[in-house]
Structure formats: C-alpha cells, structure tokens
C-alpha cells in the first residue's frame, strides 16, 4: 500500500492543480493577514473559508483522481498487489497531497507574520488539524461515491450534491426544524444532528477552542453547556475520527467486491 501511496502522491504533487491549490492558500493567507492585521482575527476568518472550501476541494479532487486514473488502476489490478492496497493507497495519496498544500499554503504566511511567537499558534494548529480531518473525510466520501458509480457524470453530480448538502442545505434544514419544533426540547436532537455533519462538527470544534460564544450558535451553545470545553473537544474529535474511519473502511470493503 505504501508504494501505491508514494506513487499517487508524487503524481499529484507534480500536477498543475496542486500548485494552483497551494498558491490559492498562500494568497488567502497573505490577504487575510493584510486585511485583519491581527493573527487571531485572521484565524477566525480563515476558519469560515476552510470549513466550506476544504470539503469542496477534497470531494472534487477525490472523484477527479479516481476517474482519471481508472485505466491505470486496471493496470495495477492485474499486478500481484492486494486490491485494497491499491484503493487505500490512492485515497491516502490524494488526501495527503491536498493536506500538504493546505499546511504549506497557510503555514508559510502565518509563520512569516510571526505565528510562532504569538498565542494564536494553538488555535492555528487546531485549524490545520481540522482542515486535514475534513480533507481525509471528504476525499474518502468522494472515493466511495466514485466506487459505486461507473458513470463519471453521475459520480461528479453526486459528489457535488454531497458537498452542497453538507455545507449549505444541512444547516438550512437544521434551522428550519429548530423553528418548526420550537415547542419541544431539542438539545439531544441538535447534538445528534451536529454529529452527523462533519462540517458542523469542525466549526464547533474550532469555536469551542477559540471560546467565542457569540459565534457558537445554538448547537455550539448546547455543546458547551453539555460537555464543557474539554469534553466537547474530545467528543467532537472522536466523532471526526469516526467520520474518517467509516468511509475508509467502506473503501476497503467495496474495493474487494467490485468488478473492473
């Protein structure tokens, strides 16, 4: 598996899109620091961008890589290699190269700005860790979608829909249900609903750490009340880990049975 991972990683690191992605983060980091003129504020703004954008890029890159390397995958399948190592290797290759663009692209401007000497370093690291989690989760989901759909267009549409649902529609439905069922106690419901969406989960995770109650919103407040900051962090991290492990396991399971 490590061999496949290495080759996928190299293949991607040398592709033009990785550089575009890296450059985008570099620019974003620089512009945010320039406009906010303050590290902590830049971290908050960055959070809002990362939480929406990272899943989008992860999903699109995931499906794109799967479909574009399909014939090559067939060549690999005929080699004496375990099936699961091929797909897990490719998946981790994509996720790692994306994570690297994220870390380098955002890390460089912040370090030059004096991140290492400021208090914001832990907030910033948490932001990066969440970004990596989101990359892992959404690339895995994208690979799942691609494994189930031979048709490229269908796969792409489902992937985009998934992102749209998680990033935009989910919140809307959530808010609507809060308004409709106003008269009932909704604490457990809203906690559960948050756990079911990795994007919401990441947002709360970061806001808990930043301790900005004004931005926490309803679920965040419930979260904090229920678990306190420390437990809330542990719990949301475990939920993210589950979000990463389940789709990854399904890649392993599905790839064993699929016809090529």
């Amino acid at each position, binding site marked *: 598996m490590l061999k496949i991972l290495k080759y996928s990683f190299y*293949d991607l690191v040398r592709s033009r899109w990785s550089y575009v992605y890296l450059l985008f983060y570099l620019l974003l980091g620089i512009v945010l620091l320039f406009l906010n003129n303050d590290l902590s504020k830049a971290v908050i703004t960055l959070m809002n961008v990362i939480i929406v954008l990272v899943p989008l890029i992860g999903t699109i890159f995931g499906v794109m890589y799967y479909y574009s390397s399909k014939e090559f995958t*067939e060549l690999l399948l*005929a080699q*004496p290699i375990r099936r699961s190592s091929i797909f897990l290797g490719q998946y981790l290759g994509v996720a790692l190269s994306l994570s690297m663009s994220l870390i380098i692209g955002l890390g460089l401007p912040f370090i030059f700005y004096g991140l290492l000497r400021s208090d914001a370093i832990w907030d910033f690291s948490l932001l990066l860790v969440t970004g990596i989690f989101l990359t892992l989760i959404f690339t895995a989901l994208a690979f799942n979608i691609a494994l189930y759909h031979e048709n490229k267009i269908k796969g792409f549409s489902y992937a985009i829909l998934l992102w749209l649902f998680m990033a935009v529609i989910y919140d809307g439905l959530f808010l609507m249900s809060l308004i409709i069922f106003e008269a009932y106690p909704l604490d457990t419901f809203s906690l559960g609903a948050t756990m079911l969406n990795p994007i919401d989960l990441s947002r709360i995770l970061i806001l808990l750490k930043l301790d900005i109650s004004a931005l926490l919103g309803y679920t965040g407040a419930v979260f904090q009340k229920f678990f306190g900051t420390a437990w809330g962090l542990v719990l949301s991290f475990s939920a993210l880990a589950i979000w990463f492990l389940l789709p990854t396991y399904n890649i392993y399971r599905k790839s064993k049975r699929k*016809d090529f």
Partner: protein
Amino acid sequence: MIAIKDLHKRFGKNQVLKGIDLDIGKGGIFAVLGPNGSGKTTLIKCILGMVIPNSGDILVDNSAVRNNWKYRRQIDYLPQIANFPGNLTVAELIRMIKNLRGQQGNDAPLVEAFHLEPFLDKRLGNLSGGTKQKVNLVLAFMFNSPLIILDEPTAGLDPVAMLYLKELIHKEREKGKTILITSHIMGFVEEVAEEIVFLLEGRVYFKGNIAALMEKTQQNDFQHAIATLLKENNA
C-alpha cells in the same frame, strides 16, 4: 496452466458468461475469438481477478483465483486501452511497475527494439496512442512470467512494431510459455495462433486448431471459416 469450470458472470440483467468450461494447457499460443459482446474481455478479466464471477472456479497453475492475489506473479497482462498517469515519464513508469511487482524486469532490449529511447524522459500524457501502446507492450513483456495475456495487442501499432511483436510472441512461445491473445484482426490471429477458442454468447462454441476449424466449417481459408461460424449461429 488455466482450468475454468462452469464459469458464470452476470452484469445486472446481462448474463455475459453462461457456463464456460475451458482447459488451457502449458505452452502454446491461444487466440480467444468471438463477436463483440461474446464475453472475451470478461473471461480474461475473470482470469486476472478483476471481475469476480457469480459462480464457477478458475485455477491458474493449480491455485484458485478467488480472494487471491499472489498467483498474479505468474501473469503478464497487456490491457486493451493504455492510459497511464500523465505526470510520470516513461522511464519512471517502467521503474514503478518493476518496483510494484518486486521483480527484475528485462526492459532494455524491448525499449531498443520499439525505438522508445527518445521518449524515455517524456511525460506519458504527451505521447501518441501508438507510442503508448509500445510502452504498454514493454510493460507486458519485460517480466519472465509463464503466462502472458494480450488484449488487442495490435491496436495502433505501425507495421515495423507489428513485425517485432509477432517475433516477440514467437520467441516467448519457444521458451515454453502460454500466451492468450484476443484480437479482431484475423490476419494476425491466423499468423500467430496455434489454437482457437471461439466464444459465442457466453459459451465456448469451438476449441481446436485452425485446421480443425476449417474442417468443421468446410472452408478453405481462415477468415471465411470464422465468418461461417458466425453465420451458422445467426441462421
């Protein structure tokens, strides 16, 4: 070398293989023929473990194919469409496949014979179809496996490369290897194949050498014999 027993495969409602029984002995050049959609590629992919059959058994060199991957060390495979990661160079791809298989490959004479030296440092994305097919052939022939499976090996090749390919196939045959070929170019099959396996609608319709085929169909050239096989079925 390969033993197939009562192999069935269905894709959705489409029953592609309807009970294939086939024994392919050690040594020899076997051509798998049949009209489009007769199940040639599916059969080959079943042997390679890329398609998982609904029922039936396949043994390659006495080891079962199902849930196994080690047996593929015995097989060199040339896929039908050569499409490689565009960002790798030819030399890197060759090194990579050797590394992945963990075997020493003998690629230098093949690269020379197909005149690929000028392309070694080029990215695979920038190569023409024919050149890609040559790279594909180098990958398939550089290991010394006892079973070679070629799916449409002639696609996109120029006449010089074609001549060399035939020479190569005969050379490997002389080493006592088993070679499985699918092709739609009957001239090529007639020249190369020792034995014909004719598939029709998911079953083995005919297996035997070219002389036996001509006798069965009462034709005196190969192309007409194949055409007769097809017509007989339609009638």
